[in-house]
């Protein structure tokens, strides 16, 4: 593309908080580029929610938009209240892996089950970055972190597969080494209904890479590239083959009644009943 585009038109004039080489910056700019390519001149059609963690800072307070920066893990409940009261706003959540599938996991599963009409973009850096690099539910097996100095002894969670099982309408995973695919996925998800989940596997050179043996962000991106397996290909692989691999692609896209549809249908029925029977 030859057009000049700057994400600045969507941002408040504030210094960004990300460390050099942080993948959140890629996710932020690909999201804003997606919004731009969809023809939004500003973010007035959106409401952003986030929790606690580095990637919660992508929208708040940087996006020139409405943003509700909630407690750790509670962005999805806040988004539930917002979307049900204002079904016409486009609610987008940014959150880290600890926020979305650690402390907030229950809300994630239930929002997918309800098919709540929101887009959740999870920046999976595989670590608790802001608190200094503690093991996360997504940390690869055997990785050294500050709370697993001998290597992680737990199996990581596959959030994308979980979202599919729980009932999401759209699920995709890309890495920050695939910004174009990530952006296209965001564009697609923004035009769909129901619960949409995009996981962006992302590098945290400061709190994860450093201890896990990567010398910089570039090396982490090369690691992503060398270890990504397309979704279709992964279907024929064993769990063992897939250990420490990153399966990327679209995991599902399907039509299910969404929470807004079912809730407002119920409300219409209840109101009609009042008209027929009296109250």
């Amino acid at each position: 593309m030859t057009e000049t585009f700057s994400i600045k038109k969507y941002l408040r004039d504030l210094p960004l908080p990300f460390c050099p080489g942080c993948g959140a910056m890629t996710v932020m700019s690909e999201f804003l580029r997606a919004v731009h390519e969809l023809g939004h001149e500003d973010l007035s059609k959106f409401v952003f929610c986030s929790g606690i963690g580095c990637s919660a800072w992508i929208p708040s307070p940087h996006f020139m938009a409405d943003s509700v920066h909630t407690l750790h893990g509670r962005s999805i409940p806040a988004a539930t209240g917002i979307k049900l009261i204002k079904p016409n706003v486009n609610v987008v959540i940014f959150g880290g892996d600890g926020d979305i599938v650690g402390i907030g996991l229950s809300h994630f599963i239930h929002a997918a089950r309800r098919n709540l009409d929101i887009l959740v973009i999870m920046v999976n850096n595989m670590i608790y970055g802001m608190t200094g690099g503690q093991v996360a539910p997504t940390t690869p097996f055997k990785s050294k972190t500050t709370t697993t100095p001998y290597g992680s002894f737990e199996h990581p969670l596959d959030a994308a597969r979980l979202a599919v099982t729980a009932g999401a309408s759209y699920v995709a995973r890309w890495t920050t080494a695939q910004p174009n695919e990530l952006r296209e996925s965001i564009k697609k998800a923004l035009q769909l209904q129901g619960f949409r989940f995009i996981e962006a596997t992302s590098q945290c050179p400061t709190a994860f890479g450093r201890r896990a043996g990567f010398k910089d962000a570039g090396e982490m991106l090369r690691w992503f590239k060398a270890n990504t397996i397309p979704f279709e290909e992964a279907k024929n692989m064993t769990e063992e083959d897939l250990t420490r691999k990153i399966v990327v692609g679209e995991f599902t896209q399907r039509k299910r009644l969404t929470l807004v549809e079912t809730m407002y249908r119920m409300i219409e029925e209840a109101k009609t009943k009042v008209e027929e029977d009296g109250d």
Partner: protein
Amino acid sequence: MSKKEANTYFWQGNEACAQAAVTAGCRFFAGYPITPASEIAELLSEKLPKTGGIAIQMEDELASIGAVVGASWAGAKSMTATSGPGFSLMQETIGYAFMTETPCVIVDVQRLGPSTGQATKCGQGDVMQARWGTHGDYTAITLSPNSVQELFELTIKAFNLAEKYRTPVILLADETIAHMRERATIQPTENIEIINRRKPKPNEKAFFGLEEIPPMPSVGEGYNIAVTGSTHNEYGIRYTADPKVHRQLVERLNSKIQNHAEEIAETETHNINDCQIGIVSFGCTSRAIYEAVENAKTKGLAVGYVRLKTIWPFPEKTVKELAETAEKIIVPEMNLRQIFYEVQRIADGSADVLSLNKIGGGELITPEELTEKIMESAKN
């Protein structure tokens, strides 16, 4: 409920609460089942959709109060209802609602704790949790009804105070009041005062300061609101290290309630300027005071009382008045001394403060027990 006429109902307490929520303009309820508060969720699930409102059962109490906060920022008057264990889980978000100045109502129908305790039995053990449950410097507004009728009235008041002061309000009911059935006479709805949050003017930008109680826009209206539980300036922008910004914000959040404590504090009083013995009571326990006062009167003893309808901010002025008159003040509570220490602090030596406590099995403090305590304290 009628717009123009007063009507009399035979309601369960929780039913009065649900009815009042609808009358107050509540349009969003999120909750999680818990005894003895579940009827509120059940009734609002039936009532709210008929008015175009939303009622949803969430996966837990953390999600319930989280959704309530979200709905409030989307412009809806919103509420949740729970009991002790759920109230404990909600504390972090109650602090968030306080910090972000999010109006909402949290009904805590008290049961017997700690922990699962005696889940179906009445208690009054959440008084101090309502005051200090969340971390940090916090000022709560907490109301305490002692009848079905008053549960209706204080539910409306809870919404009004939440909207007026832009703050979470706790309605501290108890199992006895919530589950009992009695007569309630409800004023014509057109006579019931309903307060709505002040909205900003089109070009306003400061929703978190400048004024004591700033105006509150909703998301989706073009204001570009930045809501955060982190320390923030008037425009919602985070300042997580600046001492001045923190002091300014947190001192204002506390003083916007404390400066209006007298206005918020509601009590029922009797003989507080002419009594030997005083009683300070609240909630279901206070139902025993009327008979006890009469009993004492027949025995020639003048007893006055302050019944707290507002617990927090504590009605200091009225209790102080009582302490200046009475030689002794009895504080009956279904806990092991919570309001007692508050009364002692206010009395500050000008009256002896005595406690009458009872916990277990939901057994109430009876008028006889209170009478006995009054007579005994008059002797010594």
